[in-house]
């Protein structure tokens, strides 16, 4: 559609205003992290720190086990994403390529699992993990996050496999590949971007969890994840908002970076299926 100069000017102004309001909270997080304690306690507030306090980041990182928390979050994510991807790759492939009796209803069940409230599932899982001694261990999160991730990954991967023509495997099998060999040597390499996108999305899901970490790990400080750790800073030092903000930047940054550079992969996962 053609637009006149004044129309596109209005568009840019509208865009600037909308983004300015909607993204202000993120800007404010960074500004607060870079301000001095005096600056964040002054009225009217200062919207730009006179001298950016980068030292707050090093201070928080050295005085708080932030790096340990981030490491724990990473371990839980690697474990749960790894576990979920292994079972989902096989299941997604099977759902895509075989028309099995009961396969469809199984697929539907897996999707219904997306509706499960975590606050319901956390109760029996707590009982089970307590009985087998997993409470306080990151392994509890690996399993609990898998309940969040598998319903997504299985269906996303099925969707990706559906886009790969069957002729590829057939050709490989004519050349003497076994069905499993065809899957590993032909289909999976072709599906690599899809696998990466799915794993990335699963990583974000695991990184965002708070409910399971709080329930299983509260009494095990050495296993705290980033989201659990930062909530213990809130309320304890009610007024040190610059330090909490700096910690929050540490935790939010990995996902923000992933989003900014790999957005189209993430969005692919988000909208998978819904457009059909």
């Amino acid at each position, binding site marked *: 559609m053609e637009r006149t100069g004044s129309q596109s000017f209005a*568009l840019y102004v509208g865009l600037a205003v909308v983004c300015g309001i909607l993204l202000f909270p993120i800007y404010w997080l960074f500004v607060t992290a870079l301000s001095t304690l005096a600056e964040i306690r002054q009225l009217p507030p200062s919207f730009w720190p006179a001298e950016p306090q980068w030292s707050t980041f090093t201070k928080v990182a050295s005085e708080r086990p932030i790096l340990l928390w981030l490491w724990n979050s990473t371990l839980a994510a690697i474990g749960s994403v790894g576990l979920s991807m292994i079972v989902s790759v096989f299941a997604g492939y099977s759902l895509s390529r075989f028309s099995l009796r009961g396969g469809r209803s199984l697929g539907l069940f897996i999707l219904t699992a997306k509706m499960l409230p975590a606050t319901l599932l956390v109760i029996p899982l707590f009982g089970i993990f307590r009985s087998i001694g997993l409470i306080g261990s990151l392994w509890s999160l690996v399993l609990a996050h898998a309940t969040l991730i598998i319903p997504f990954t299985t269906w996303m991967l099925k969707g990706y496999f559906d886009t790969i023509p069957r002729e590829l495997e057939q050709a490989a099998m004519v050349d003497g590949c076994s069905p499993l060999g065809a899957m590993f040597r032909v289909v999976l390499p072709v599906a690599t971007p899809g696998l990466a996108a799915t794993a990335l999305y699963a990583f974000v899901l695991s990184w965002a969890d708070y409910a399971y970490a709080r329930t299983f790990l509260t009494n095990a400080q050495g296993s705290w994840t980033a989201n659990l750790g930062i909530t213990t800073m809130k309320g304890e030092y009610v007024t040190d908002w610059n330090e909490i903000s700096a910690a929050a930047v540490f935790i939010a940054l990995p996902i923000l970076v992933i989003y900014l550079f790999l957005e189209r992969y993430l969005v692919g996962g988000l909208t998978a299926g819904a457009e059909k």
Partner: protein
Amino acid sequence: MSLRFLDLARPSRQHWLGYLLLLPAVALVALIIVYPLFVSLDLSFQKIGMATLNAPRRPFTLENYGKLFTSPDFWNACWVTIKLVVVVSAACFAVGLGTALLVNNRFKGRTLARLFVALPWAVPEVIAVVIFAWIFDSSFGLMNWLFIKVGITSQMINWFSEPTAAFWVVAITMIWKGYPFVSIMTLAGLQSIPEDFYNAAKVDGASALQRFRYITIPVLMPVLGVTLVLVILWVFRDFSIIKVLTDGGPLKATQTLSIMTYDQAFGFFNMGYASAIGIVTLVLCVVASLLMLGRKSQAMY
């Protein structure tokens, strides 16, 4: 030997392989989702405090459900949940649709604008809570300064000890966290509309408004339906935002069914009662999404 012989989809051929590939997922899902679900269903019919697997079974009772439906707390939680669902999903749709339509225009820097308009999606919920807890801080928060400056109030509002104020802080945080999902889904839907549709309509003399009404809206409808259900389910089940921001308070003004379930289980250690609330929440979620999507529920997948 024909190629058909090698078609994996052919019935009777290599079915065992299909089942074998499904097996790990089925076993894992059975272990960590299905079995726990049965455990919680079982718990909901027992008067039980702390749940462990080796604890002796308590006698079957409907007491938890009886207590639930006569408890004013439960009805309060239902009411809070419904209010929050309505407010948050309506606002998420208003902001999400608005931003999506705005950046769907063709202009220089559109890709970047699309990226930034949905940026809050990438902020973890707990971090969003940190940001908004600070903005609504009662002593040095930005919102109090703004409210006084604009003249809405003359004194500091203590956002987290005032029931109505706390509800709105929760709602605003959830709207900010939830609207990008609507933008992203709407943009994906808009992208699936071929430019030809609009050109053909223009040739036929349709105005911009007519094009929007008769092309954009109908094509977008199925996507928006699914999106609405997903947003509602998200608000319905959310735990981290409310728990960290207000802990369900003050005076249970922000206590949704999810928060009530959790508090009964891990605050008061009434695991049986908590399971009953959780089961009712799950049933409500399933019924609500089936009602809204109806036969279209397949489209969700």
